[in-house]
């Protein structure tokens, strides 16, 4: 199962195909995209991500293991990009596949929620005036 931190654009379609299996009927994919405005309405030109890679991968593995246990047999793939991203670029993709859609949805949602809380990954918002600000997730401590 693909659990990775990458520096190049994420191939979402490839990640979806990672989790395919002949007896799976549903795949849910979540894609997090750099948006042009933050929650305060401030205009954002891009995001810069960094990660502590070995611990981030270990967090992905733990999350995938928990999901497999909780939604028996679900397959999960996670890819997070680091470096400087522009508006519209994919920062993270999670693909979850299962026999039925309930488990695919639940595992995908679980994985992105847990990733945002637990994975040692950080982002700095960049603004048009050249300044920037580190943005924490809710429950990111």
């Amino acid at each position, binding site marked *: 199962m693909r659990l990775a931190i990458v520096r190049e654009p994420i191939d979402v379609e490839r990640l979806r195909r990672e989790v395919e299996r002949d007896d799976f009927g549903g795949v849910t994919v979540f894609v997090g995209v750099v948006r042009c405005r933050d929650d305060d309405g401030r205009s954002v030109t891009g995001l810069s991500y960094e990660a502590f890679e070995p611990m981030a991968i270990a967090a992905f593995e733990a999350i995938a293991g928990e999901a497999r246990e909780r939604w028996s047999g679900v397959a999960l793939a996670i890819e997070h990009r680091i470096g400087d991203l522009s508006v519209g670029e994919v920062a*993270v993709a999670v693909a979850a596949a299962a026999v039925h859609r309930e488990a695919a949805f639940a595992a995908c949602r679980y994985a992105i929620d847990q990733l*945002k809380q637990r*994975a*040692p990954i*950080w982002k*700095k918002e960049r603004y048009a005036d050249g300044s920037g600000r580190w943005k*924490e997730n809710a429950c990111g401590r």
Partner: protein
Amino acid sequence: MNVRVLSFARVREVLSSGQMTLDLADGATAADLWSALERGCPPLRELAASTRIARNGRVVDGCEPLRDGDEIALLPPVGGG
């Protein structure tokens, strides 16, 4: 003893360095390491409450004893996704 210190995001910027080696007294704990860093860089103080410390890939608390060769990571609140 020597430990390798990795820092990220805001902590890295305040320390002006993502990677350094610190020479600590034998028996030093994670909290001692943080204090040593604060002495060299007082602005770090306001990040103390929010920064977690990982020793060799595992988050520890301040009383964790360190050993020669450890890799210590300073982890501010995360923002992935």
